[in-house]
């Protein structure tokens, strides 16, 4: 069974991050939320494998709620 890859796998990490920031540029919070939801669905379909998706969901769910302070 395949496992979630937590090692570096981006072909160009900086370019991805810049594109991610760009898609959110000048968007309202509601629009950003919707963009994120669409992105997750697209990428989840690309991954496909339910076992891997569940591993990703489990890690994503372990949030550190103290991390974010509004400013």
């Amino acid at each position, binding site marked *: 069974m395949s496992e979630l890859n937590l*090692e570096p796998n981006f072909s160009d990490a900086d370019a991805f991050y810049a594109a991610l920031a760009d898609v*959110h540029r000048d*968007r309202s919070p509601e629009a950003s939320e919707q963009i994120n939801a669409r992105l997750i669905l697209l990428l989840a379909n690309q991954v496909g494998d339910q076992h891997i998706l569940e591993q990703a969901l489990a890690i994503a769910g372990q949030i550190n709620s103290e991390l974010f302070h509004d400013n």
Partner: protein
Amino acid sequence: MPSSYNNPVYPYIHSPDQDAAQPVHHQVIIVGGGPAGLAAAMDLALQGVKTVVLDDNNTVSVGSRAICLAKRTLEICDRYGCGQPMLDKGVTWNLGKVYFGEEQVYEFNLLPEQDHKVPAFINLQQYYMEEYMVNRCNQMPQVELRWLHKVTHVQTDDAGAAITVNTRDGDYRLTCDYLLVADGANSPIRESLGLESKGQVFEDRFLIADIIMKADFPAERRFWFDAPFHPGQSTLLHKQADNVWRIDFQLGWDADPEEEKKIENIRPRVEAMLGREMEWELEWASVYTFRCRKMDSFIHHRVFFIGDSAHQVSPFGARGANGALQGVENLGWKLAAVMQGRAPAALLQTYDTERQHGARENILHSTRATDFMTPKNHITRVFRDTVLDMSRQYPFARTLVNSGRLSKPCTYEQTPLSTPDRDVFEGAMRPGSPCTDAPVSGGNGSGWLLNHLGSGFHVLLKGDFDPGQITALEALATRLTAKGDPLNIIRVDAPGTPGANTVHVTDSRGVLAERYDLQASAVYLIRPDQHVAARWRQLEPAAIEAALQRALGFELSVEQAA
């Protein structure tokens, strides 16, 4: 404020040019005696071109300013003959550490492999860099430095440039074939010609505090996101020469620059970071904002913009002064070749095309680093903080952490001066790449390949070649050199005594062979700025001559050049 450095004061000298009835003509005049202008003077001097450098001040940089000198810069300065004092004085470092809160989340080694003459980076205050450059210029009979000569007016057309210079003895005029403008980011000359440097301003402010202290922290680049001692903002700590430490505090857009520069406001920030028991003194402080911008063209008739006047970046990544020197070494040999009638004027346009590529790359990296450090809206802050949080545990997230991607020389992809590969080579080198250093013995005895390259074209070759082809290559080198177009041959691990225009070097540990994929046989043609122009698996002198002609711009049509 205390000081670990006393700025030298260079004398104003009255030039006979000031008393001439008609404007005196010089081939090349350089405006600005900072790193870019001084480097340009040294580069051209090595090509046999005389220059006059005009500077409106009479000393080197006031304040440490640019402190990170990258490997490529040190290699360029080594070729100019001012690298060694920089290496001797500078603080060598290869390791960068990134912290999120208390924890280290990421570490990078900029030079993980051995066998390079110079380290990945040294930290050296800009005033030392400039002082060593001035000292070297003063040894070069081709360079005339004029301090306290301020250029106040520039006119240019396709035949040359005319300038007005203001001094304490009044104004005088000069003309020149080429004017190199290195008058800094706010370039008064660029403004006076109605030219623009376009780009973005980042809405953030940073405090630089250079402090003198005796601390045994390692000579590493340490960067904190959301430092425990400076919550919510980033901090950078970096060691310079003379026990001076650079601390860079992110302040946010709302900070008041005048207030933040006051010692009573700096002291608590530094104490929070270093503890109250640490003894230190403030040497220099500055509050700044960033811009990333460049000119659409670095050439305006006979005026060539170099350094910050042409392109400006944010400091994270150390791509300002380092990028400036790469631009200068790109321009130097081209200008000399055109002036000496060895290349068509179209070659000069490739300074713009190749360095626009370099400037775009530098701006891209520095913009991305700045965007990561200063998220523009709520959602990008969430992503940024999540990347940092996840990077503690998950290796993939560390590749997204960006505290500055540190300066590397660019490869001139797609340049019309390169001959595309026809044969197969392994490894990172390719036409357009800067040459990687490697240890060699023999030759001029320096012990390093890069000390054999530069200032002219070189053919580097290894293999069992037909002696007839070797003779033909030597004949080509002799013919071109006699014509004033020096071509030098470097043979690796070759038997016998060197032929005409040839040096033999030995690659005893095979490092050179590995870095250049010299297995079996290989021939490289290398430009005067130590970038690869062409390479082959066979030795064909006719192909080398064609590639050389191409690298000198003889294949350029006017459209290609533009």
